[in-house]
């Protein structure tokens, strides 16, 4: 009995310690970004890797999400005889919710895992130690560019996601199901407010931070060889995805 309690206590302590370490990691990363953000070229490279290279997958996901929203929305709205509202349903779901969340999840899978693997391999092959011995701050060369890159890339990707998704919905709703094109666009324009766009933007920026934070952290504390890297990568993707969804709920309830 006592050992069980001790074990539960030990686990709780481990969780708290891990959370503390993560928070310190983030604070130190911010401190380093403010103190010496690194060369623009490093940030541009990360922007290219996290942002530009995610374009295709974001495009595809967005197109099909928009199309399926068009279908489902049409099906539901016809029940109330209000298929003219399709434009606003598609646009609001995308801008407020699906755009930020889905683009963040796709980036986690595509770029987040790569970030963790890259940093993790640098850790286990002592490349991070080598940086430290040269008095070159690993945070400045590894973390800061990735965090800044993700912070910039995510809202842009999210915007692309929204636009492509809205056209996907248009394609299905208007061209396939025969919704009036004027109604689709007009309803959308009427119902989408600045508040909606703003909340989508806030979400995607904070998701960018979560991705870079969790994935860099997991990579930085990798240990034990190839298996350690694979474990860290899996953990990073799972943790970052779950955190995104949980955080999304809280943000939505605040921003609503």
């Amino acid at each position, binding site marked *: 009995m006592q050992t069980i309690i001790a074990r539960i206590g030990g686990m709780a302590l481990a969780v708290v310690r891990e959370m503390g370490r993560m928070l310190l990691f983030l604070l130190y990363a911010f401190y380093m970004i403010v103190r010496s953000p690194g060369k623009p070229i490093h940030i541009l490279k990360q922007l290219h890797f996290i942002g530009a290279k995610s374009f295709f997958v974001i495009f595809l996901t967005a197109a099909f999400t928009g199309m399926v929203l068009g279908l489902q929305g049409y099906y539901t709205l016809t029940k109330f005889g209000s298929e003219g509202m399709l434009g606003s349903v598609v646009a609001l779901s995308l801008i407020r919710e699906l755009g930020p969340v889905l683009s963040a999840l796709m980036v986690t899978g595509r770029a987040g895992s790569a970030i963790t693997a*890259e940093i993790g*391999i*640098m850790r286990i*092959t*002592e*490349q991070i*130690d*080598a940086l*430290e*011995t*040269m*008095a*070159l*701050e690993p945070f400045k060369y590894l973390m800061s560019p990735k965090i800044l890159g993700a912070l910039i890339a995510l809202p842009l990707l999210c915007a692309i996601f929204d636009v492509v998704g809205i056209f996907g919905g248009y394609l299905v709703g208007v061209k396939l199901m025969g919704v009036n094109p004027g109604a689709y666009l007009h309803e959308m324009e009427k119902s989408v407010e600045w508040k909606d766009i703003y909340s989508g933007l806030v979400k995607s920026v904070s998701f960018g931070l979560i991705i870079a934070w969790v994935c860099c952290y997991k990579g930085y504390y990798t240990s034990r060889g190839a298996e350690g890297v694979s474990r860290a990568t899996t953990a990073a993707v799972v943790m970052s995805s779950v955190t995104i969804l949980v955080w999304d709920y809280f943000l939505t309830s605040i921003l609503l």
Partner: protein
Amino acid sequence: MIEMLRVSKAFGGQSVLNDLDLVIPGGKITAVIGPSGEGKSVLLRHIIGLMKPDAGRVIIDGEDITHMGRRDLNRVREKFGMLFQNVALFDSMTVFENVAFPLEEKTRLTRSEIRDRVHEALEHVGLKDVDRKYPDQLSGGMKKRVGLARALLLNPRIILFDEPTTGLDPIIGNAMHRLIKDTHARFGFTAVIVTHEVPAIFDVCDYVAMLYQGRIQIRGTPDEIRDSHDPVVRQFVTGDLEGPLRFV
């Protein structure tokens, strides 16, 4: 001068350094020898602050780095160059970029000055036409030499070498030793060489320290080590299978 005072370090239950005292004089070459797995690499990591001792202190040129914050530690590390046991080149950079990286980040040299310095450093270690190769396209010996070039480049005051010649053919191994000795004669840095090249290293170094069971078993000039009557030291230097050292 590097001082390690009563340094202890354990991993889990396994004690690696145990109340270790070691003074490494400035401007000299000190070799650290000892059986495999005794903690020589761990010792080097303590000297440069990559590991913190559980107890005891590490003092570099009079500055206690044991509890130093990152910023101060980085200032002290400016004095150091280090060659890792597995070299630890940046594997997504070419050889040229690897060697140029510290110059680009820490100096205000122009592009062509950097190019000259890098080529000079690479030629110094006997490498040519490897600029565009990536570390995984190099042989083990070539990697060591690139690592050496990187460690020597900024003219550090203290250089730590973790097994600079392991895995090299005897000729290149000797050449590495020569290179370290000649460069030392020119710049007079403090060198710590962890090595298994006994007795070859005796011709290179000024002092030898032997690590055994978490402590310095003996420290002295190469001649003193050769003449030592300590059975552990004798056995290790001669490579005898019979003696107090056991390999199971």
